[in-house]
């Protein structure tokens, strides 16, 4: 029995794509890593998590929806994503499945966490208002005051101090 299982583990990947626990990150168009743009925009932080499931010890991926829904709220006109961060790992439940003897040959899973900032273009009136208001005009690098990248970086350092988003609240995790 052990020999058969070992052979199965060795041979199946060769017949498949040669990959276990494969995750292809289907990201939305205009998701950016790295520097934050210095334009007037409304910025909303988001954080999502999802579980990817597999059969046969991670060889056969179970069909799942992408983390971003390109047909609904995520597909707002002009919406971009900045400072995207993704982490894939085995979480506690995933580890439990791996540790139960032979359980992972039936079902295995891996967690994906994603966070970043949704950037939506401001309406022309809002930009004009920001430009007319001297206090707002003095805000660093011409950003909308509530969305200064420096503040966002400070929030990263101290997540407890994160204020409620002024513009829009999105679900922390999508149901799949």
């Amino acid at each position: 029995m052990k020999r058969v299982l070992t052979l199965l583990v060795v041979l199946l990947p060769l017949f498949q794509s040669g990959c276990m626990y494969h995750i292809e990150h289907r990201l939305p168009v205009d998701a950016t890593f790295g520097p934050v743009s210095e334009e007037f925009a409304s910025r909303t932080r988001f954080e999502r998590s999802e579980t990817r499931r597999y059969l046969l010890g991670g060889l056969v991926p179970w069909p799942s929806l992408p983390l971003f829904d390109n047909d609904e709220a995520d597909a707002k006109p002009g919406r971009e994503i900045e400072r995207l961060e993704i982490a894939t790992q085995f979480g506690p439940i995933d580890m439990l499945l791996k540790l139960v003897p032979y359980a992972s040959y039936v079902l295995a899973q891996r967690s994906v966490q994603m966070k970043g900032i949704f950037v939506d273009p401001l309406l022309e009136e809002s930009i004009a208002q920001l430009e007319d208001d001297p206090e707002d005009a003095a805000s660093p690098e011409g950003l909308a005051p509530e969305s200064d990248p420096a503040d966002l970086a400070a929030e990263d350092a101290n997540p407890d101090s994160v204020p409620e988003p002024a513009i829009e609240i999105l679900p922390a995790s999508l149901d799949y």
Partner: protein
Amino acid sequence: MRRLALCTALILLGTGCFQTRYFYEGPKVLTTGPALDRPTEVVGHFKAHDRGFYLLYGLIPIGEPVNGAALAAEQVGDHDGAINLQFSDGQDTVDMLVSNLACVLSILCGTWSVWAEGDVVNVVGEEE
């Protein structure tokens, strides 16, 4: 009882086993989009692969943590950025053989791979 304790410890410690990340804080512009907000010229296409080595069920990464976005930035080199980025991760045949056979079902050690693909671009004009 001992097995239960070991399982519990591994589960508690196991958050983040074989972790791969996609994170970048440098000066290059890395985007999944087909263009930047400035005129650019494509100078090349890349498909890069990086492999991370871990100890104890993937709990302890050895060396630099595997990072797909940093891998893409490495490919950009002296150029300005990368567009049309695509990322994936998992265990290829080599990882699988190392982790499941040489490392005894990943208990002792294991490897994990990250792939990044995209086009390297240079900015050739002012912002549109």
